[in-house]
């Protein structure tokens, strides 16, 4: 696979390490979440057959975490963003 890195251009996916669903960004606050909330965050997945937003880490590259929108049936990638930007947009500052 080729991931179109937003800063570096096309890169072989072999340079990256995969984590999984980008919902992992939305970590609940451990002091306020209930047991089920943290369980659901950690363990339950939409696992779509179609577009998924997912986290890839450019380990053999610039160490960016990326949010890649990819189709799990065709593997087509339609969007790649810096995860840090996504996290900020979803209100994770501080």
């Amino acid at each position, binding site marked *: *696979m*080729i991931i179109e890195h937003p800063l570096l251009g*096309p890169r*072989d*996916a072999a340079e990256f*390490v995969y*984590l999984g669903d980008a919902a*992992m*960004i939305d*970590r609940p*606050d*451990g*002091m306020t*979440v209930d*047991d089920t909330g*943290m*369980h659901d965050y*950690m363990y339950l997945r939409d696992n779509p057959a179609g577009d998924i937003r997912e*986290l890839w*880490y450019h*380990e053999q590259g610039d*160490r*960016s*975490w990326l949010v890649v929108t990819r189709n799990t049936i*065709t*593997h*087509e*990638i339609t969007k790649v963003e*810096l*995860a*840090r930007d*996504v*996290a*900020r947009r979803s209100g*994770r*500052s*501080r």
Partner: protein
Amino acid sequence: MSQPNRIAGGQIDDKHALSFRWNGRNLTGYAGDTLASALLANGIRLVGRSFKYHRPRGIFSSGSEEPNALVQLREGAAQEPNTRATMVELFDGLVATSQNHRGALEWDLLAINDLISPLLSAGFYYKTFMWPKAFWEKLYEPVIRSAAGLGRLSELADPDIYDHGFLHCDLLVIGAGPAGLTAARAAARAGCRVILADEDFRMGGRLNAETHAVADMPGAEWASATCAELASMPNVRMMPRTTIYGAFDHGIYGGIERKTDHLVDSAGKPRQVLWRIMSKRALLCAGATERSIAFANNDRPGVMLAGGVRSYVNRYGVAPGQQVAVFTNNSDGLRTAADLEAKGIAVSAVIDARKGDAVIDTSGRKGLRSLRLNDGRKISADCLAVSGGWSPNVNLTCHHRGRPVWNDGIMGFVPAGDLPPGLSVAGAANGTMTLASVIAEAHDAAKMIACDLGHARGAGKAPTSSDETYEASAIWHVGGSQARAWVDLQNDVTTKDIKQSMEEGFQAVEHVKRYTTLGMATDQGKTSNTLGIAIMAAASGNAIPDTGTTVYRPPYTPVSIGAFAGRSRGKDFRPFRLTPSHEWALANGADFVETGMWLRAQWFKRPGEAGWRDSVDREVAMTRASVGICDVTTLGKIDIQGRDAAEFLNRVYSNPFLKLPVGKVRYGLMLREDGIVYDDGTCARLAETHYVMTTTTANAGTVFRKLEFARQCLWPDLDVHLISTTDGWAQFAVAGPNSRALLSKVVDSMDLSNEAFPFMACSECRVFGGTPARLFRISFSGELAYEIAVPARYGHAMMGALMQVGEEFNAVPYGTEALGVMRIEKGHAAGNELNGQTTAHMLGLGGMVSRKKDSIGSKLSERPEMIRDDGLRLVGFRPVDRTQMLSAGAHFLEKGAPADMAHDQGWMTSVAYSPELGHSIGIGYLKRGGERFGETVRAYSPVRNQDIMVEICSPHHIDPEGERQRG
């Protein structure tokens, strides 16, 4: 030496004779020959035996689709089984033998299988060999296994080397026949970066095998002129002998280039290079493959594909027979007769199925002698050129699970719309079957691609060419005989097998394929799949499009496993990471151990020491008695800086970190988000905004990754920055009661007294008159100990210098084994204990998980099953009989309890011999372990034949109060 079937002409160099050996016979061919053409030139027809019935088989085709002529190439360790003679470029000194026969090829003992073939019908093995039960592994299966298989591995290490490589292009053109050459030229002229790859050693495809004209010259000449033009262009890479074997995601194609397979010796260079080709676009110009017709005994040596016959006659200057008959169901077959006659070869009959004529049986035990026709005629022939029509080579278009669609016009499957993105198809692979239209289509396709990619230079005009008509008919199977008619030559699948399969309920294409093994041989059914589906359709009464297709998977043709591995074998399987003191250790008797990629000194053997235990016991004893030095560079080191570094650490460690003062080190416990202990280490605060974290050797990379995740994804607006400095600092543990005395002679002007530099202190400093260093007062051994770090370039010198200074204290270097012994003596958890299944509670560190803050893993670490009071706890063990040695991996059982899983109480994680205590010690996890000090339990290790009683004790076998390290 005479080559009885050699005729004039073709693209071979008859000035350049090559000698080779076939089954022990010395033969001669010419440069430009394949092994197959040279064998045919020498009149050799029988070249192998079939898979199941051990039927005599001859050369069937002239290309990579060859199902029959599989040979063992070369000898000794270089022996290469299952090699298609049709793809082997002849070289001087070539040695090949036939395969899959017991006894001589001509007198194969297993030909008995052919006589009992009714017993071996489709799926016979599923229905028997079940009684008596024990006979399967002992008798039936070994017999089946030894009869199955084709060629033989040498069982010696492959003597050749392989390489990988990466290529980038605008357009990859796959196949260099008329379509590929035309397309490559047009795209290259337009300015694209083009790669043109073809599996053949001579580009030109069918132009080399036919008598067509292009641009008013013979096709083969045009091909070679076009190749010359392309080779002269800087934006074109010509890759003959290169098979594009797979289409992967996002325009990546796999290519295998055979670099030295056409040479007698690879001379130390890679035999093959596996290319990963990143293309913006690709154009498949892979042509088509001819197929046979199913009629009785259609598998005899001498029965060949008509296109192959033309290749041998036109390209190789070989007559495949003296008396050739032609059997065709389409217009293409007739050209064979014309080409043969043009070369003066006798054509004994042209049997055109479209006129109702058909071959219904053949005879000739080890080679074709005659044919029987449906009108009763018997015709003499030693070669039958069969054409059952052409199947477009759509394989690569299906590698993303696309399904081709049926085209009645050409009686074949053609690519559908669901191609891999970026791939287009032109020429015969696309179902375009005549030369002029092939060239026009390829030219237009290339022009359009160039234009899409923004290359607007003139692509030029497509060359003119001769053209012909192509008419195919739906004649697949000739009845009229009870004898078997082969569909899949290599796997010995006949029309009867397919029919029986369907009668037994195996009707889906995949069921038929799996039940009969149709299309599953080394040719992936290139000549048989379409025919098989047509026979299925006829048997079920369905139309071919409703019957379905099978899925083509990579590779297009088989690729050596060695090529996929590239250089990564032997010692080069993975890189070595070496510690800064590696050379020193090498010179001082070290044995090394692989820990991940690292090589670490395991112990340092001294003269007179009989075994490793002697060395390790000495290293431990001397360290505890005086001072020892160990290279601990491999521990991960992460430089952490930023205004919010403290806050960040407080969120990633489960214990508090906000209040760590500058100049202090703290032990840190790191959990996974699921609450399991992930890693532990120390973290030193060097300055207000500057920390150095250490991790275990094994987790250095993954901890860094997780920290980056936390930094970028969870808390993107903390000002914190991470960089690995693992390789940058050579770090040495200096441990033992004399460590302070030793180091005070090393460190420049610094007060190392317990008051000035207490346990868990850290500082930047200088050593040996000015070399920058870092000093940490931390202890893994439990002794008074330090770790001192210098820039890695000084690591080698530092080790020597520490030893030199330490001479007066009898300092010893110690390795990972002694390190392990001392940490077990101290009850410190390491890899065996932190195996990803461990909770903080199990380690007795439940209290370290702060509940006053949110940190990674803290929430989920509190789930009920993870904090059970009756759960496992890390405790120590010693043998009741102190002379006995403990064994790691032993499970604990209560005295008298049955040895079964229900009574399993835990297991021993690590054991060591403690020189200080004089007996074996261990640590491990035991249910309710913390409450059971003094009890005895069984340590049961049946795989070690060990069953001993052990006493439960504190995991801190030595200095449980920790006085030494604080002293």
